[in-house]
């Protein structure tokens, strides 16, 4: 059962759940976590493909994705703190300067 496709299906399910989370939640940190979830779903695809292709490039790529995710987390959370300091809230509905 645990061939390539089953990993890929799990990955697709996780990615879709992440998408729904990004679209429905208002708390910026939860949205951020959902994005991490989507990234991980993609990572799983990479690793699975890498394994079944017998090629390590995919895994190296996952390594880089993790690095980017770490940087993203650091900067993103700093942004949230700054935003929170200004608006006293972390809701994306409060980031409404563009609202007419």
């Amino acid at each position, binding site marked *: 059962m645990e061939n390539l496709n089953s990993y890929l299906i799990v990955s697709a399910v996780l990615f879709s759940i992440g998408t729904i989370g990004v679209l429905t939640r208002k708390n910026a940190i939860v949205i951020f*976590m959902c994005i991490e979830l989507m990234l991980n779903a993609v*990572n799983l695809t990479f690793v699975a493909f890498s394994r079944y292709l017998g090629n390590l490039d995919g895994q190296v790529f996952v390594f880089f994705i993790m690095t980017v*995710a770490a940087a993203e987390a650091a900067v993103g959370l700093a942004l949230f*703190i700054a935003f929170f300091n200004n608006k006293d809230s972390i809701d994306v509905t409060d980031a409404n300067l563009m609202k007419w």
Partner: protein
Amino acid sequence: METLFFLIISFVAIISAILVVTCKNPINSALSLIMTFFCLATYYVMLDAPFMAAVQVMVYAGAIMVLMVFTIMLLNIRVDASKKHSHKIVFSSIIGFFTFVNLAYVLFKSRVAVPTGPYSADMIKQVGHTELIGKEMFTNFLLPFEITSILLLVAIVGAVILAKKKI
């Protein structure tokens, strides 16, 4: 046996992913997310990539999620009390569903006929995953690796500046 294990892991991963989205308290979301990350690490082990599993646990479950939990606690964020719009959930679910259909269709149709690379499961077991990854990284991918360090440096400086009291 492995199939059963795979199914259990998949079940846990998906349930905790759903919890990430549905929990009202961000702390609960964060804890569920950690659960998902562990499941993924398990997958990596099952895919003969123990180094990736270790990194997954250390970087994601360890560093990133700790940072997030700290932030949540630091900001003392209240439970997400604002009511959700039902139509938003419906639309989002439709989009999510179609995303899943698209992805599943593509991924399901993908077939790996013949392994193209030299790294078979036996070879990984024999040489060691970490060593192979290390060789790849410091030979073929040396330049991206170095650039990543600059990215991290920039992220550190950016985070420090952004998180200052006044911007």
